[in-house]
């Protein structure tokens, strides 16, 4: 294990972390404002990737694909909200979990029926092809750096939006005490649709960005969804700041654990069992970290409600 490898995997981890943040941000905001648990949020990420990949293939341009996929993801989110989710706000979490689980079953299958089970490919845009030299003899793809930059930029914008604008103040107030905000004459339903659509679009954006480097397949949303849940549980449900820190943490632990543990264990074990134990332990690491953090702080790192 060299320093170069560590650097590359660290960057990969951060980049996975910002993608996770884009998904988790919508999830945590929606939960914070409306007390609504939406399993179908991962599907938004998947739809974003599918829209991006097929629209880019259709228009012949990554950028047009990206530009068209965002409103498409937004529309999908709003349609789902109107059709299903808004009837669930008054219901208990169990009902919300099950109904949104039904939405996942439907949409995963719909994607399979429309695009087939085989993974789609989305080419990296010409502008972001090639690599930068991190160290002599060590290239890192420009596109991955672009993801990192775009994710951080969106996170910054989101922070400005939530912390420095009137809408953001309403969202934060709604997360702390929604009935009071409604009593003060704010249209909480309208506010929620806004937050919801915005969250769906962020997840869709993450999907498009991930499409060129990950395979676009019907189950891709589920993996991300569960890690996004881990993120918001660690970060404290409803907290955007917590989600950001937890997302980077989870991204780095997941990536480094999976790639480095087999090598680390080889120092103390034979090669073959080290590879196996490393792979098993690497995939458990995030959840062990979550358990440890929750054992100390059951409400997450940055709890919103007291």
């Amino acid at each position: 294990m060299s320093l170069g490898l560590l650097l590359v995997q660290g960057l990969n981890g951060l980049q996975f972390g910002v993608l996770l943040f884009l998904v988790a941000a919508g999830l945590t905001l929606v939960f914070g404002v409306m007390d609504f648990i939406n399993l179908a949020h991962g599907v938004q990420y998947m739809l974003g990737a599918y829209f991006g990949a097929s629209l880019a293939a259709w228009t012949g341009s990554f950028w047009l694909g990206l530009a068209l996929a965002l409103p498409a993801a937004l529309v999908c989110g709003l349609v789902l909200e109107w059709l299903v989710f808004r009837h669930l706000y008054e219901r208990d979490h169990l009902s919300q979990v099950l109904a949104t689980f039904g939405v996942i079953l439907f949409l995963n299958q719909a994607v399979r029926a429309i695009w087939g089970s085989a993974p789609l490919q989305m080419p990296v845009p010409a502008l972001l092809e090639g690599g930068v030299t991190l160290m002599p003899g060590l290239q890192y793809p420009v596109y991955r750096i672009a993801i990192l930059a775009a994710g951080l930029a969106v996170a910054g914008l989101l922070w400005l939006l939530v912390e420095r604008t009137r809408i953001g103040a309403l969202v934060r107030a709604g997360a702390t005490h929604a009935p009071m905000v409604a009593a003060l004459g704010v249209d909480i339903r309208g506010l929620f649709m806004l937050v919801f659509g915005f969250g769906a679009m962020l997840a869709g954006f993450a999907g498009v960005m991930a499409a060129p480097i990950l395979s676009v397949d019907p189950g891709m949303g589920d993996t991300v969804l569960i890690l996004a849940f881990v993120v918001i549980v660690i970060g404290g449900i409803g907290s955007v700041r917590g989600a950001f820190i937890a997302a980077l943490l989870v991204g780095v632990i997941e990536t480094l654990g999976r790639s480095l543990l087999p090598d680390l264990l080889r120092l103390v074990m034979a090669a073959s069992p080290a590879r196996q134990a490393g792979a098993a332990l690497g995939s458990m690491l995030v959840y062990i970290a979550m358990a440890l953090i929750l054992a100390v702080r059951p409400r997450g790192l940055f709890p919103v409600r007291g």
Partner: protein
Amino acid sequence: MRAALILLAALAAAPFLGFGEGYSLTLLARVMILAMAAVSLWLLVGGGGMVSLGHAALLGIGAYAVVVLDDARITDAAVVVPVAMGAAGLFALVTGAVAIRTSGVQFIMITLAFGQMAFFTASSLAAYGGDDGYTLYGRTTVLGQRWLEDRLAFHYLCLGLLALTLFGGHVLLGSRFGRVLRAARENPLRAEAVGFRPYPYQLVAYSIAGAVAGLTGVLLANAAEFVAPSYLAWQRSGDLLFMVILGGLGSLQGAVLGAVAFVLLEEWLGHITEHWRLIFGPLLVLSVLFMKGGLVGMLRRG
């Protein structure tokens, strides 16, 4: 419990009423095994108010206990069953100790995450087939005898264990322990005020449900003579939770009704179209929106 008793009687008679051939018996075994799993989950959701979205992992651990022992050529039920139940119960105890410290939506997410952890661990077990799964050398033996190879014997074993689980759950919920558990579900603050800290009760219930799920996993592995990580997938946990809710939280027998309805509906839709989930998903949404109280509630009303 009337509906459940009628159902159990029907299952007992089924092999002699034209459902005795291989395909029907396989389907009925699946129904009974999943019903048992649903009963163990009902104890958590309906009994203790603990909405777990990681229950399939406990089944999977029981199934993988069969695999690990099978690989070591140990197939006798006297070893397999205690190991499977112990492993699943222990996993439930350890993860439950963390998960039950939280509640509500965090509990749902944490059980989901722990389930996923078990799933990825199973996928990385290259010695037992990894993602591709593991085909058993043979079914579990009882006292060295290969009784479970006989389809009819297996049918009645599943039925007997289902009846036992249902009865055991009924007794448990009616006991002092069960009453504390239900009190903690209704109002944890009041339960604590009268001197019962819910935590240990919930943890014990979680472990018991885990051990029963482990036993169910043994049956599941035996039914297919094959185990794969997909047994632990979170969608399976979602399916189980749906069975419980479809049946209804009003009474323990809801779990059995829900499992039967779920498996038969799935089977029927699967015959109609390859994309049966396109129908199944919306049906799930509709049943949540409009069928409050589940099948048990419908039976009571009408």
